[in-house]
């Protein structure tokens, strides 16, 4: 089935997608993406494209940057996404345009990766390990992040994350996508997005705590410093051990 043949009844069947979210399975390896080949869209389609797609261009660019890590690559991916979206606009019913565009963006990005970095396309599920209740380390109140998180520290901590966690944190916490939009983009269930987000955030917090100024740590660690609460919340930091 081509994109143009897709009808609204085909929507909402995506893995992890809430009802009404689009499925764009037909947007696979079609690489004849030139502007001339796209000119078979109705005038209504032109209006819809301006109304539904163009306002999302900046979001698409930011999301593509989160996926590719490069503004130049992001622009390439968004260009191809726009062409594919334009071709498909007559078959799109206008519900959840951002989710629809993110699906196209994901397919476009995957096609691009298949051509250039096939080794990166595989996304095996992460091993799930949960610690036994009560075995997690205890974090004292002094361990919380400093009031002012330094930009550089955050960037470094983000870069140190496992790419699967980093991507979800970037999409949800930096780009502001919903869980469902991120799930749609990554073609994973919403539960997977939530799990990766939780792990990514936990690791970020842990990493940023360890970058606190030495003076605060020294004050905490000196003899007589409070150890109040040690062992008080056995399950509280379970995520820390994941």
């Amino acid at each position: 089935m081509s994109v143009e043949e897709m009808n609204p009844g085909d929507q909402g069947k995506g893995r992890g997608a809430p009802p009404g979210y689009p499925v764009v399975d037909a947007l696979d390896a079609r690489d004849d993406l030139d502007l001339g080949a796209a000119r078979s869209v109705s005038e209504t389609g032109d209006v819809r494209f301006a109304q539904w797609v163009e306002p999302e261009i900046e979001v698409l660019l930011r999301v593509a940057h989160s996926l590719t890590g490069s503004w130049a690559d992001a622009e390439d991916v968004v260009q191809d996404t726009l062409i594919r979206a334009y071709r498909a606009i007559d078959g799109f019913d206008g519900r959840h345009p951002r989710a629809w565009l993110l699906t196209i963006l994901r397919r476009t990005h995957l096609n691009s990766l298949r051509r250039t970095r096939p080794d990166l396309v595989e996304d095996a599920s992460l091993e799930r390990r949960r610690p036994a209740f009560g075995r997690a380390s205890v974090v004292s109140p002094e361990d919380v992040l400093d009031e002012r998180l330094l930009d550089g520290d955050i960037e470094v901590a983000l870069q140190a994350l496992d790419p699967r966690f980093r991507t979800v944190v970037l999409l949800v916490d930096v780009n502001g996508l919903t869980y469902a939009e991120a799930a749609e983009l990554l073609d994973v269930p919403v539960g997977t997005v939530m799990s990766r987000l939780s792990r990514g955030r936990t690791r970020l917090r842990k990493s940023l705590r360890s970058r606190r100024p030495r003076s605060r740590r020294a004050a905490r660690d000196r003899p007589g410093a409070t150890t109040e609460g040690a062992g008080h919340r056995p399950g509280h930091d379970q995520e820390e051990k994941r």
Partner: protein
Amino acid sequence: MNLTTCWWASRRLDRYLDGDPSAVLSSADVRRVERHAATCRRCAGDLAERRRLREALRDLDARRITDPASLERLDAMAAQLRGPGTA
């Protein structure tokens, strides 16, 4: 301090802060999280830390300025696709 409530609340703090439509906490759960955070120093600190991280990450997006030239090229391309005079 109720350890069971700490454990229960800690597993809902992200959802409490996110308020994402896919994983909304019930109003009863929201009240329980808030009541607990009001009386538990550790969970209050945990919540504050998560909130600061979220704010810092959102700030990161604001600081990651997209290249205006790149946006202009993409806007121009979109206009070329749909043809002039449609917007």
